């Protein structure tokens, strides 16, 4: 079963539907107790890192997520959910994140218009999350901030400047793109995550 964090700062309808589509039982919750006890967790998010982190902290879901991961749960962060896994973000000063992964979220400083809105190619070496997908396959991104070169990077993309498109450290995964908006390839990533866990 997958535990989907019922975030007020995410497009829940899309991600809920996509996870149902890949054929798993789904629990959509904001109960810290349920989250701390979960085995497989998806953390979605759009918009502001600071707002998303403030919500996690005020609901104690931040602690529940750390407890679950410490107890061996698998976690997938999506977009801002991916960014939240890191030490912190430079969005509006410095906001600490969940600190599950090393790295800092920073604004794009390349030559192309920000936010990046659209499809971009993702390059990776063979890895379970991208099983059955060719390196270079485009995924759908919407973001103004990114981690430049995460220590646990498993995939990268280039938007005038290279950035980390996906990470994995043990059972913790993150993707900067929106798998629920990335058609077949995106659904495959979700299915891979579910099957791997």
């Amino acid at each position, binding site marked *: 079963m997958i535990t989907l964090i019922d975030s007020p700062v995410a*497009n829940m*309808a*899309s991600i809920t*539907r*996509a996870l149902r*589509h890949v054929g798993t039982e789904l629990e959509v919750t904001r109960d810290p107790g349920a989250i701390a006890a979960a085995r497989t967790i998806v953390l979605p998010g*759009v*918009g502001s890192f600071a707002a998303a982190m403030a919500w996690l902290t005020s609901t104690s879901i931040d602690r529940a997520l750390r407890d679950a991961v410490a107890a061996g749960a698998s976690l997938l962060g999506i977009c801002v959910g991916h960014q939240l896994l890191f030490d912190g973000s430079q969005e509006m000063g410095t906001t600490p994140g969940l600190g599950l992964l090393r790295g800092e979220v920073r604004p794009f400083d*390349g*030559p*192309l*218009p920000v*936010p990046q*809105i*659209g*499809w*971009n*190619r993702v390059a990776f070496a063979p890895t379970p999350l991208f099983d059955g997908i060719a390196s270079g396959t*485009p995924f*759908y991104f*919407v973001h103004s901030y990114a981690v430049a070169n995460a220590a646990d990077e498993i995939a990268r993309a*280039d*938007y*005038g400047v290279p950035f980390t498109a996906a990470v994995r450290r043990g059972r913790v995964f993150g993707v900067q793109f929106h798998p*629920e*908006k*990335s*058609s*077949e390839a*995106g*659904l495959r990533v979700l299915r891979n995550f579910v099957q791997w866990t």
Partner: protein
Amino acid sequence: MDVIPSIDVLQGSAVRLMRGEFTLVTKYGTPEEVLDSLEVARGTRLHVVDLEASRSGRPVETEIVRRLARRDLRLQVGGGIRSLHDARTWLDCGAERLVIGTAAAESPDLLRQLLETFGPERIIPAIDVRDGAVRVAGWQREAAQPMPEILARMRELGPREILVTDINHDGVLRGPSFALYRTLRHWAAGCRIIASGGVSTAGDIVSLARLGNVSGCVIGKALLDGRLSLAEANARASTPNAIPERVIPCLDVRAGRVVKGVKFANIRDAGDPVEAATRYEAEGADELVVLDISATEEGRRTAVETVRRVAESIYIPLTVGGGVRGIDDFRALLRAGADRVAINSAAVADPGLIAACAREFGVQAVVLSCDASRDGEVVVRSGRQAAGIDAVAWCKQAEDLGAGEILLTALDRDGTQQGFDLGLLRAVSGAVRIGVIASGGAGRLEDFRDAVETGGARAMLAASLFHDRRLSIGAVKEFLTAEGIPVR
């Protein structure tokens, strides 16, 4: 690809001649002043034309070239080079490369000597082309031989690069002659092309780089007029350009059905929206646009329901527009499953709506839908009313207010399949940094290529073309790939 700023010099000044006339001179100051104002950095490749030399047939502005060489610029100098002696004079002044025009087309022996004496790296044969023919002697007359023959002979002599100017595109805003440079992949195979003429937007630079055979582009007027900065040009030239461009089918919906008209009239039924949306995703649509074309209260409620049904059937981004009157409509459509909402007439009536929506929902959610007339004027209320404002100015204002992208529809092309309005597209895409979606007039495969290449669009939208299955999304993407334009 090198971005090569260009200056013409005459009597010690950087100048421009109008229509090639020495009596119609605009002076821009000393070459150094111009280079400083353009922020030309050390190591930049610079194209210098000695106008007096091209008229008189002997080097004149040698002192200027000497001065510029001391600035650590990689100079390529042109202007009436007609002998080994002239060539040596310029090289002694510090020129790195020489551009050989008339002599290259008409004196193969001299060109051979130059290449043998100074090496294929340092000699750049140049041709000026008009309507497929090479022009010589300051464009005054047509060369004795046809272009393919001249090019074949040049190729045999083995220069690394050939500079090609399309005269019809020089100094005007039509964009570079992509078609010409594409044909040169065959006629000048093995030679890299330096493109010259008509380069005026950041998109032009990306499109030239994608051709694959272009090693440099010469930019004059657009830099001098400040339409394009050298920093932006350099950034685009060195940016990887494999980011996919999008193909977007559009569903015009009314009363829960897909409909299609011509120039916003003569509406006919075109099927079920969910069925169409699912089919388009399977065919490779990168995004879907749903436009509510009903104009009644009841119609709007139905449209929200249609959006919900469509959103629940696809796994690609969904943009919804049509009849959005304010922030509440905007929110209702996002809640129904839209990723982005396009606002049109309501934003013209109250531009503050763009800023309000961007603040509330994020820049990425706000699309400005701009319908423009043939004269580039904004038209509102589904094409019924001229708003009395200029489309380019309006799109720029919308970007400043927080629009994340522009959906630009050429009204008189809508449903005609006569091709996108490339002039309108160029004008808008050259004026804003956010993406422009081309809409109205898609008919042939080439239209999609031209919208990106010449128009600078980041996405192309079509409705009836796909509904009636005259072209498939797959066929469009295959064609774009073959033309060197990246797609998903």
